[in-house]
């Protein structure tokens, strides 16, 4: 197994004949490689669960093909796809012990007894389940149960991909971090293709090699966590990734300069004039914008928030509001006039919500 190919996959639930199809998932075209971890990230209703269900075989896409390597599995039943899945709520077989739970998929496939035992022990060691192997599964904690669900997928040596459907939902917050690092360790140890659905950006960014950001059934951007942070392709990605999200201000553009109601921003690259009537905005991250006692662009302070490690300031600019980081030595209070500086190259231009790349010279 090397890859999963989404070949123009799209899904529309059947509606009135003749009406334009309402897509739960708009056409997507992508290849996922073995050994990498992908996260499907987006607010609820964005289509990420539909996409996961298409891969697991619960939903047959209305358009396009799904390939596992070169094999078309679009219409193949779940059990023939060799995938493993960890669900939102722990799914375990109540009446069996942990060991029996782990052995179950192998037993169903007629694997020889000693081989089952060897493999179950291996996986139990990997997931730290060895001490509870003989216990009834139903008495265990939620995180142990989720590890059992994962283990049931991993015992099969032929597994092509492991799917996670918001697996940390019911986990105690204190244990979330631990279980997440366990998942990462498993991923590194077993060289598997993993797909992780979540609406929590921290989970997505820490777990995945690549994150697929989705909204309203469409994929907005696929990229590494750094790419999403540094060069969001869509204003929603800028807003959704990062805490707090990117600042957006309506602007007009001429060459290397953007004007927000008279305030001039240096874009660090030159841009062609956007089409008439297009929505033009500049975006910058609070992480790259600094508020000083003086110097830079003069802005009116509205609110200061102390997060401990850093302080954030909300300020008025050009009829709107934005957030930036307070410089360590700046003692600013609401009502004060502050000076705003932005690191060069970190002011982005969005035209109709899409990021435009300028010509650096």
């Amino acid at each position, binding site marked *: 197994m090397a890859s999963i190919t989404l070949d123009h996959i799209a899904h529309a639930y059947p509606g009135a004949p003749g009406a334009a199809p309402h897509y739960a998932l708009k056409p997507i075209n992508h290849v996922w490689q073995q050994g990498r971890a992908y996260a499907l990230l987006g607010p609820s209703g964005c289509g990420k669960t539909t996409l996961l269900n298409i891969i697991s075989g619960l939903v047959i896409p209305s358009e396009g093909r799904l390939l596992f390597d070169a094999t078309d599995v679009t219409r193949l039943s779940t059990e023939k796809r060799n995938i493993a899945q960890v669900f*939102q709520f722990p*799914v375990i*077989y109540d009446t069996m012990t942990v060991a029996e739970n782990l052995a*179950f998929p192998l037993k169903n496939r007629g694997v020889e007894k000693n081989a089952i035992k060897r493999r179950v022990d291996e996986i139990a060691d990997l997931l730290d389940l060895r001490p509870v192997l003989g216990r*009834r599964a139903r008495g265990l904690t939620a995180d142990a149960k989720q590890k059992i669900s994962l283990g*049931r997928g991993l015992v099969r040596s032929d597994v092509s991909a492991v799917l996670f459907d918001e697996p940390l939902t019911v986990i105690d917050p204190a244990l979330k971090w631990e279980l997440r690092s366990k998942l990462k360790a498993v991923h590194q140890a077993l060289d598997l293709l993993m797909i992780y659905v979540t609406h929590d950006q921290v989970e997505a960014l820490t777990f995945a090699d690549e994150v697929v950001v989705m909204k309203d059934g469409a994929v907005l951007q696929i990229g590494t966590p750094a790419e999403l942070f540094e060069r969001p392709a869509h204003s929603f990605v800028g807003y959704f990734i990062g805490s707090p999200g990117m600042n957006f201000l309506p602007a007009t553009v001429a060459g290397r300069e953007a004007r927000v109601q008279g305030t001039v921003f240096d874009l660090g690259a030159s841009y062609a004039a956007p089409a008439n009537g297009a929505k033009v905005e500049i975006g910058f991250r609070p992480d790259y914008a600094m508020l000083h006692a003086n110097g830079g662009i003069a802005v009116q302070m509205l609110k200061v928030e102390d997060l401990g490690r850093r302080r954030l300031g909300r300020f008025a600019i050009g009829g709107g509001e934005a957030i930036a980081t307070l410089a360590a030595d700046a003692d600013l209070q609401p009502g004060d006039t502050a000076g705003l500086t932005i690191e060069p190259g970190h002011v982005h231009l969005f035209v109709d919500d899409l990021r435009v790349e300028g010509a650096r010279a």
Partner: protein
Amino acid sequence: MMDKPWNNRAWLFVVPVLIIVLFSSLVPMMTVVNYSVQDTMGQNNFFWNGVAWFQGLLDPTTDIGGRFASALVRNLIFSIVILCLELPLGIAVALCIPKQGWKVGATLVLIALPLLIPWTVVGTIWQIFARQDIGLLGAALNAIGIHYNDTQDPTSAWATIVIMDVWHWTGMIALLSYAGLKAIPDAFYQAARIDGASRWSVFRNIELPKLQKVLVIAVLLRFMESFMIYTEPSVVTGGGPGEATSFLSLDLVKIALGQVDLGNAAAMSIVYYLITLTICYVFFTIMTQLDQRKGV
């Protein structure tokens, strides 16, 4: 459960229920206890009789004792037989109820229908249906050469009563099981599919364990009702032929209202009630403890 506040004024809320149930249960029960330790020489002329009624009742060599013992055994066999038939059948029916569409509602309504037919009418339906002259069942069985006569032949009578009970009550087990099955999240079926489990394995490892609690309730309810069965057999067979289908309640009513043998009837009532309570209590305790031990 743990953090419920302690408040004795909550008793005020319970008082109305307490009064009505005391009135309907304790007062009549006192009358029964009263009769059970006295004998009468005729109109309202009672004297103390100690535990003589109970001694007679619990000694199978006496007339009344033998009668009680055989009714008890008969009733226990009946309860066990109908549980063995209704439980698997009810679960099977629940598994086959359609998954979606208008058919779900229609099927549920049809399955529930026998539960809302007055018990006398249930008896009447089967009394007619089983007759060999005008009933479809009786006529059809005799036509294909099976000797069947539910008023003359004990085997036929038993078969009729058992089939009638299965017909009457399987729907309840099916509805309870259906409610239990509906509560199983789809993820369990999806996981089983991924694990390559067979249909039987899904039933054995997912559906049956998840149904356990509902089934405990179903067994309790069915046991209670079948152990108290009166109306249906009284209409269909009247307890006969002979004593063949004379269950505890039928016998009790015969003694109490038919023969007005108050002392025996009262003693029998108390013993009967205590047996029902004990069996239910023991069954319930065993099931809940089994459940807890498995969790460890």
